[in-house]
C-alpha cells in the first residue's frame, strides 16, 4: 500500500510569536525569549567592540562613535531587557520548582489552573521589574542631571 502523503502543519516561529489570542503567561514567555536573545546579541556585539581595542580602536571613549545618543538609548533597552528577564526569570525558577503552582485539585468547571495560582507572583515580579526600570531610566537617560 502506498504511503499516504501528509501536510506538515507545525507552526514553527509563528507558534512563538502569534497564531491566536493568548494569555498573559504566553506573552511573558515570548518576551522572555526575545529579551534573552537580545541580551545574547548585545553580549556578542560587546565582545566584538571591546576586542577592537587590540587594533587600537576605542569606540566607547568620549567623543567616539558609541557616544551618540542612539547608543545611550540602546544601552537603556539592554538594561530594560535585563530587568524583565531577571525578574521574570525569578518567577520561572519558583514556578519550575513547583513552589508557586499549587497542589493538584479535582477539576471542576470552570477550571482553575496553576496559571491562576501563580498570577500574583507574575504581577509582583512585573511591578518590581518596572520599578527597577524606572530607577535605571532615571540614570541611563540622564533624567537625574
Amino acid at each position, binding site marked *: 500500500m502506498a504511503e499516504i502523503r501528509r501536510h506538515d502543519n507545525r507552526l514553527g516561529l509563528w507558534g512563538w510569536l502569534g497564531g491566536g489570542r493568548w494569555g498573559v503567561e504566553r506573552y511573558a514567555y515570548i518576551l522572555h525569549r526575545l529579551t534573552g536573545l537580545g541580551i545574547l546579541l548585545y553580549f556578542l556585539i560587546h565582545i566584538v567592540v571591546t576586542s577592537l581595542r587590540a587594533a587600537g580602536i576605542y569606540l566607547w571613549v568620549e567623543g567616539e562613535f558609541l557616544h551618540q545618543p542612539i547608543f545611550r538609548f540602546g544601552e537603556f533597552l539592554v538594561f530594560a531587557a535585563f530587568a524583565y528577564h531577571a525578574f521574570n526569570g525569578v518567577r*520561572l525558577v519558583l514556578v519550575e520548582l513547583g513552589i508557586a503552582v499549587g497542589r493538584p485539585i479535582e477539576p471542576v468547571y470552570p477550571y482553575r489552573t496553576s496559571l491562576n495560582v501563580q498570577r500574583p507572583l507574575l504581577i509582583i515580579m512585573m511591578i518590581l521589574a518596572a520599578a527597577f526600570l524606572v530607577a535605571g531610566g532615571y540614570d541611563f537617560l540622564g533624567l537625574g542631571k
Partner: protein
Amino acid sequence: MPDSSTVVRQIRFHITRYNPELDRVPYVKTYAIPVREGMTVLEGLHYIKDNMDSSLAWRYSCRMGVCGSCGMLLNGHPTLACNTQILHIADRELTVGPLPNFNIIRDLVPDLTPMFDKHRSVKPFVIRADETEVNEPAGEFYQSPEELEAYLQFTYCIKCGCCMAACPTLATDVRYLGPMPLAAAQRYNVDSRDDGRRARNQVTGAAQGAFRCHYAGECSRACPKGVDPAKAIQHLKRRLVLDYLRLARRKKPCQKLHGPGEGKPLPNIPAAPGKTVPGDSFPNLPERSP
C-alpha cells in the same frame, strides 16, 4: 438538521480543506449554515457533510467530550468540537482548522501518531517490582484519599492533543515530548502504587523532556478537561531536581491491603454478577443464574 423555526442566524464556517491525493497545500472553503441555540461545532460539521459537502473529513466518536477525537482549531483556539457551542465563540464567522503541530492526514484529521509514540515512551503504566501482582492481582493496594488526590487531576486526560497543539515550544521543537506525555508521566510518578519514577526520569529528564517547558501555560488554558498539564510538568521538574540532587525521599510503593486469600469482602456488598457471554474467555467467572 436544525429546525428552521429555531434558527438564530447564519454563520459562515471557514474550514481548512486538504485532500492528499488532489491538493499540494491546504486551502480554506467557506460554508454558510443555519445555526440554532445550543448547536455545537460538531453538529455544524455534520450539517455541512449531510447537506452541502459530503467529502468533508474529520474525526469524532462520543459527541460528549469524553473520547478526545474531535480536537480542532476553532477561531484560533485548540479545543473539542463537540464541547463548543457555535454561538459561544462566533458572531458571524467561524474558522475551523486541524490541530496545529501535527501533520494533516485529510481536512480536519490530524496525525496523532507522534503524540502517542511519545506517550508510550514515558511508560504510562504502573511499574512495580512485584509484576505478578500487577498483572494477576490477588488483593487490593492500599491508597489513602490524599494519595489519590496527588494524581487524580492528571488522570482526566483524554489524549485529545489540544495541549500539544497549543504548546509554543512544540511548534519549534518537534522532538520535545510535549504536555500530554509529561503530564502522563507525572500522573504515574506520584501514584503511590507505582515504583517506576526513576525509569521514567531517563526520558522525562532528558534534553527534550520536562526542562524544555518554559511555562507559557497554553496547555493548561487549552485543556478541555481541566487537567492542567503545566502544573503537572512543574511538579515533575521539581521531582527531577530533587532526584538529581539525591534529596528526594525514597518511598516504597504502597502494599496490598490484604494478602492473597486474606481478603474479606464487606458483608453488605452483593456478589458480582455472572458472565453473560458464553464461552471460556473468562473461565474463572461463575455462570449467571437464570
